[in-house]
C-alpha cells in the first residue's frame, strides 16, 4: 500500500550532470528576468496584472473572440480548421499535407505540436519532419523530449551535443565549442529549409481583430522555414487569443522579458495571410488549425486561470522542485509548475495518472510572483489536490494522517505522545525496514525530539501586562 510518487522517484535518480545543467540554466533565467523587468519598469507588477485581466476577459468571451479571429483570417484567404482532440489535429494536418503532396517539411518550435506528438505521427506517415529550432533539432537527433518550454535542451551540455552531431552525421568530427555547434546546425538546416515543401509553426499570440498570428523566435528559424516554403500550417491553441493588436504591446513586452530576459525576442513576426502578390518568398497557402484538446474543459473547470499562460517558462526557472527534478520528471511536454497544473487538466481522462504532479510543490508561491499573466498557480495546485482527494485517486506516497489527527485533537494523548517522543531519538530510524520512511529520510534530516520542552516553557510564560 505504501509506495512512492513517480515524480519523486525520477528526482531521486536524476544524473548529477543533468541536474547541474538544469539548476544553472534555470537560476540564470530567473536572475536575468528579474534584472531586465525591474530595470525597464518601475512597476512591473502593474503590467503583469493587466496582462492577466486582458487574458481573463478574452477567455470569458472566448466564443466571440474565436469567431472574430476565424472571420478575420478567412477574409484574408487563410483556411481555418478546428480540432477537438489531438487525433483530430494530427489527421487535419496530415490531410492538408497530402492535398499539397508534401513529403518533407521543417517545423519551428511549437508546444502545441509537442502536446499532440505531431512529429512521430507525421514521420510514421511518411512525411520527413525536421525541427529547426537549434534546441529542438538536438532533441530530435537524440530522440529525446524537451525539458523546458523555452530552453528545450536545458538538461544537456556541449559534450553530449557534440557527440550527437558526430553520431548522426551532422558533423564529421567531434567539436564541442558552442559556436562551432551552432554554425554546423546553420549549414545543415539551410539545405533543409530550401528543400522543404511546407513549414509548420505554432503561434505565441493571435489577435482576434486582425487575425494576426504572432510568432517569435530568436534564431530566425520560423522566418527561414517559411520563406522558401509554399505552404504554412499554424497549430494554435484556442487559448492563444487576445482581443486586439493594441494589446500586443502588453504581451510582447512581457513575453521576451519573462522568457529570456530580452525586451523583445529578435524576430517577432505578424502573419495574417499568404504572401503578398509582389513578394517572391513566403507561402502561397496558409492554414490555421485551432486546437482544443481539453482546453474547453479546462475553461469549464475551477482552474481556468491556467489558460492565461503564454508559455514563457519563468515559473519553471524559479521553481525549487523543477530545478532539482528537471522538466522530464513531469512526464509531459509541460514541466514545472505550469505542467503540474496543465497536464492533469489537459489530459482529463488521464487525471489519476498525473494527480501526483500538483503535490510536487512546496507552495512557496515564487511561480505566481514571476508569472507574466499573474496566474495563481499555488491556488490551482491546491484545487487539483482537492480534486484528487474528492475523486479518491490513490496517493501512493501519502503518509497516513489518521493517527496524527487523533493525537492532535486530544490534548491528553498529545501530552503523553510528546513525553514518549524522546525515546524516538534512540530508535535506529535510518535502518528501519519501512520503505516510505526511508524515502522520506533520504531527503531530510529529522531534528532530535525535545519531548515537549516547548509546552513546558510556554506554561511558565505570562501574558505581558500593560
Amino acid at each position, binding site marked *: 500500500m505504501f509506495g512512492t510518487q513517480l515524480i519523486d522517484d525520477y528526482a531521486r535518480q536524476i544524473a548529477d550532470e543533468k541536474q547541474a545543467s538544469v539548476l544553472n*540554466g534555470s537560476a540564470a533565467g530567473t536572475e536575468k528576468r528579474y534584472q531586465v523587468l525591474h530595470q525597464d519598469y518601475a512597476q512591473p507588477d502593474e503590467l503583469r496584472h493587466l496582462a492577466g485581466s486582458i487574458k481573463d476577459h478574452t477567455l470569458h468571451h472566448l466564443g466571440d473572440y474565436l469567431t472574430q479571429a476565424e472571420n478575420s483570417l478567412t477574409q484574408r484567404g487563410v483556411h481555418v480548421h478546428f480540432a477537438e482532440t489531438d487525433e483530430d489535429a494530427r489527421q487535419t494536418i496530415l490531410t492538408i499535407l497530402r492535398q499539397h503532396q508534401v513529403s518533407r517539411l521543417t517545423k519551428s518550435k511549437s508546444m502545441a505540436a509537442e502536446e499532440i506528438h505531431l512529429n512521430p505521427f507525421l514521420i510514421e506517415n511518411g512525411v520527413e519532419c525536421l525541427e529547426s529550432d537549434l534546441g529542438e533539432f538536438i532533441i530530435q537527433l537524440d530522440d529525446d523530449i524537451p525539458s523546458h518550454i523555452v530552453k528545450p535542451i536545458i538538461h544537456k551540455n556541449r559534450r553530449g551535443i557534440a557527440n550527437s552531431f558526430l553520431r548522426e552525421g551532422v558533423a564529421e568530427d567531434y567539436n564541442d565549442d558552442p559556436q562551432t555547434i551552432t554554425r554546423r546546425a546553420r549549414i545543415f538546416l*539551410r539545405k533543409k529549409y530550401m528543400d522543404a515543401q511546407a513549414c509548420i509553426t505554432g503561434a505565441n499570440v493571435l489577435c482576434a481583430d486582425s487575425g494576426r498570428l504572432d510568432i517569435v523566435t530568436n534564431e530566425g528559424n520560423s522566418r527561414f522555414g517559411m520563406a522558401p516554403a509554399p505552404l504554412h500550417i499554424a497549430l494554435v491553441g484556442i487559448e492563444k487569443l487576445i482581443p486586439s493588436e493594441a494589446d500586443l504591446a502588453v504581451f510582447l513586452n512581457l513575453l521576451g522579458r519573462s522568457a529570456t530576459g530580452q525586451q523583445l525576442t529578435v524576430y517577432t513576426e505578424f502573419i495574417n495571410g499568404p504572401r503578398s502578390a509582389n513578394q517572391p518568398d*513566403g507561402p502561397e497557402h496558409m492554414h490555421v488549425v485551432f486546437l482544443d484538446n481539453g482546453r474547453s474543459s479546462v475553461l469549464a473547470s475551477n482552474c481556468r486561470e491556467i489558460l492565461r499562460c503564454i508559455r514563457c517558462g519563468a515559473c519553471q526557472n524559479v521553481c525549487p522542485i523543477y530545478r532539482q527534478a528537471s522538466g522530464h520528471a513531469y512526464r509531459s511536454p509541460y514541466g514545472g509548475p505550469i505542467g503540474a497544473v496543465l497536464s492533469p487538466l489537459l489530459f482529463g481522462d488521464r487525471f489519476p495518472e498525473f494527480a501526483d504532479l500538483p503535490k510536487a510543490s512546496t507552495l512557496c508561491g515564487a511561480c505566481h510572483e514571476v508569472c507574466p499573466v499573474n496566474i495563481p498557480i499555488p491556488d490551482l495546485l491546491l484545487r487539483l489536490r482537492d480534486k484528487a482527494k474528492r475523486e479518491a485517486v490513490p496517493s501512493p506516497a501519502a503518509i497516513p494522517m489518521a493517527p496524527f489527527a487523533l493525537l492532535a485533537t486530544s490534548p491528553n494523548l498529545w501530552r503523553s505522545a510528546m513525553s514518549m517522543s524522546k525515546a524516538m531519538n534512540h530508535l535506529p530510524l535510518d535502518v528501519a525496514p519501512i520503505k516510505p520512511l526511508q524515502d522520506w529520510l533520504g531527503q531530510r534530516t529529522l531534528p532530535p525530539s525535545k519531548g515537549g520542552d516547548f509546552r513546558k516553557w510556554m506554561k511558565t510564560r505570562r501574558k505581558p501586562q500593560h
Partner: protein
Amino acid sequence: MSRAAIFRKISAATAALKIKAPRPEYDASITHSTPKLAGSNLLEIFSRNLAEVNGRTLLSVAELVEFLTKSGQLRGYCDPLLYERIGAPLAAAGLTVETTYEPARYDDYQFGITRASGAIAESGTLILDDEHTSRRLAALSPWVHVALLDRAAIHRTISDALAALGNSPNIIWVTGPSKTADVEGILIEGVHGPGEQIALVL
C-alpha cells in the same frame, strides 16, 4: 464536426460563469519603458537600443563600404530600387553587387541590402514587411543584413508601432542579429539568420 463541438463546449463553459471579466481599459503608456526611451532624438534612442542588442547603425554609404570591406563581406545582393543610391557606390568601391537573388545560390550572398518600412526607437527594432522588402530571403540568408531606414519612419514606442502596423499580410520586427543561447546558455549570434544586423540611415 469539431468546430461545432468546440463552440458548444466553450459557450457552455462561459455561460456558467457568474462574473465575466470586463475588458480592462488602460493607457498604452503603461507598456512604455522610461529608461529605454531616455533622450529626445528618436534616431539616437533607436541607435542606442539597437547597439544594446549588438546591432549597428551606419549613417553613410562610405561607412557601409568600410564595414563590409573590413569584415570581408564582399559579395551580396541589393534591392534593385536601391542600386543607384547604395549598390552602385559599393560596386565602385570594388564589391560585387547583384540585383537578383537566386535562391539556389543562397550561400553566395554575404550581404543583403533591402528596405525597412520603419523602426522602433524604444527597442532598436527594424520593421520589414512584404511591400518594402524586395525578398524575404535576401534579408535572412546573408551574414550581413543591411536595412535602409528612413529616419522619418522611426516610431517612438512599441505601442506606436503596433498602432501603425498596416495591412501587409506579413510583417517582421527584427531586433538585432539572429541568436541563440540553447547550448549551456552561451550567447551565439548568427544562428539561421544574419550575424550582423545593420540599420543604414542616409
